[in-house]
């Protein structure tokens, strides 16, 4: 029995303990506090809201693993969404066909990847701090988007896009399926592929990685490019869900994606962290938000509680570290 537990724990990794404990705590607290919390409706709303924040968090995860940060994620997603919307509009707006959608999505992903590519090149070749590079890219993209749309909405999206935002297959929402697919891609990328291994190596010690013969610049450029491409996927989903694009949409998610990563046990300095715990952390955040919503609180209170949860987890982690320290001293 203990062997089995040990094996499961090894398979899941130590990072999962925190998010999973938070998950159980949230389920118990809201199960008692809000009578209709443990219902189908709650999980359905979580399933529809999760992908938007989740895809952006995946885009944030890779740069954090290398010890960087990508503050341009939300506006990269906006720009990608705009690209798709324009392609659809130029092909007849509401009457645009599937071909236009495919072309538009590819262009959107290309735009997202391009923004990531530029950041990656600047970060890798000038060794400028990723916070600053992605910050200026964020300011630039926000300005570009506002300039091109004059601060307004771009709408006129064909009806067949709605299922991507609202449809479900076998009772599972389509955006959730897309998100889970992306989670799996990231998981495979980080655990099975050379790029993933190198990403962790760079996050741990970039100089040592470079001396061991790995082309760290190439890895950094690829990481930011992939991050940008993932933002584009988020942008496409957001377009389908809101039936329009507006620059600044999802801006409030920016810092929450960072929280979700840290809540999922990712090391702020890079090098350590896995996708699955981050996924669980995201579910916890959305459940919290839904539970508070059921109890009559608004989104702003949920934001505050997300922050409090983060601080609590950090304090618990500190306490756990101290206890371990005491134990080893005694032993």
């Amino acid at each position, binding site marked *: 029995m203990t062997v089995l537990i040990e094996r499961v724990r090894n398979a899941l990794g130590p990072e999962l303990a925190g998010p999973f404990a938070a998950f159980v705590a949230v389920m118990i607290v809201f199960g008692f506090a809000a009578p209709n919390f443990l219902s189908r409706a709650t999980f359905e709303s979580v399933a529809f809201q999760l992908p938007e924040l989740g895809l952006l968090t995946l885009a944030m995860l890779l740069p954090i693993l290398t010890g960087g940060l990508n503050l341009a994620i939300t506006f990269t997603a906006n720009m990608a969404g705009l690209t798709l919307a324009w392609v659809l509009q130029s092909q007849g707006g509401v009457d645009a066909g599937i071909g236009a959608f495919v072309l538009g999505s590819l262009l959107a992903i290309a735009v997202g990847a391009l923004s990531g590519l530029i950041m990656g090149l600047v970060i890798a070749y000038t060794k400028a701090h990723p916070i600053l590079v992605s910050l200026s890219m964020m300011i630039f993209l926000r300005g570009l988007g506002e300039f091109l749309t004059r601060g307004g909405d771009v709408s006129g999206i064909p009806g067949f896009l709605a299922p991507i935002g609202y449809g479900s297959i076998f009772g599972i929402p389509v955006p959730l399926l897309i998100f889970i697919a992306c989670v799996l891609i990231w998981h495979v990328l980080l655990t099975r592929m050379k790029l993933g291994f190198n990403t962790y190596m760079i996050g741990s010690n970039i100089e040592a990685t470079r001396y061991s013969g790995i082309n760290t610049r190439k890895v950094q450029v690829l990481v930011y490019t992939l991050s940008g491409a993932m933002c584009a996927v988020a942008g496409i989903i957001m377009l389908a869900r809101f039936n329009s694009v507006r620059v600044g949409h999802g*801006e409030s998610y920016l810092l929450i994606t960072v929280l979700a990563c840290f809540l999922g046990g990712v090391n702020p300095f890079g090098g350590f962290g896995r996708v699955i715990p981050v996924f669980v952390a995201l579910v916890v955040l959305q459940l919290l938000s839904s539970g508070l919503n059921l109890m009559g609180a608004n989104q702003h209170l*949920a*934001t505050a509680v997300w922050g409090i949860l983060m601080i609590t987890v950090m304090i618990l982690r500190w306490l756990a570290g101290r206890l371990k320290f005491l134990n080893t001293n005694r032993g």
Partner: protein
Amino acid sequence: MRRFVRSHATELALLAVIAVICVFLSFATDRFFTLGNAFDLLNTGSVNIIFAVGLLVVLIAGGIDISFAVAASVVQYLTATVLGWIGGGNWIVGFIIAGALGVALGCINAFLIHGFRIISIVATISTFNIFFGLLMFFTGGVSIYNLPDWLTTRVVLFEREMADGTWAEITLPVLIMAICVFATWALITRTTTGRQLYAFGDNPEGARRFGINIGAMQFIAFGWLGLMAGIAGLVQAHYAQEVVPNALYGRELDVLAAVVLGGARLGGGKGSVLGCILGVLLVSITQNGLNLMGVSPFAFKMIVGAIILAAITLSNTSIERLLPFLKSRRVHS
């Protein structure tokens, strides 16, 4: 001279860029090179400069703070409410309340960072969400317009009528900004605490072994930023003549970009008040110039973002190549 160039490379580069932009704008527009416009720049830039010098202290101490702008919003709202309760007050009472609230919020950050060893970016992103979420929740997003008279009355310290009939004015925010800038400069360059902050930011473990109280350093740095944020919040309320809960939301990243542009290093131990002010000025002069040239305001951010991106790229590559002794020094150390 060579030593001065070496130690002030960022500041000199920024000065050169600002000079080029100013000369260009003087010829391109007829309104840029006037006293009135220069004073306008100072009046509108005051709040950002107060934020910037506060953030500079935290960056020097090796931390980062995302929460100061929403902390300033919280301070604004609470100060306006408290002033309503006590029925008026005056500038001195206002500054005491706003400053104290600001320091308290800054100390919350310092307590989390030092007490529980939470990394500053994680702690301050968390408090950012807590401050902003609670502010919006309790206020319901409602603005305060009936501020005390002394707070909303414009105080003109210096005015002169220009040839074309417009008035060039320096208002109270500029004086407050000057005091904050001088106080920060004195703190970080003329006191032992300032030298300890640099040492702590450069090498926390070394500073600890040297006998510097690292807890005190955290509280001084974040408390100072809190003080500046509180003052900036009150000045912003005076300038805008209203308190809007989400007016300062998003300002933190703009200020951060300007401060780091001014040569402060993310990671600590480096940065100067002069560079920090030049960084803010570069951004605001560019915006002001674009405005005067009749460029659509929607394009401002795009151009400012592109300039910062270009500046980072250039400052990280060519300065080291242009001044090889910088590079050789880094290799030897």
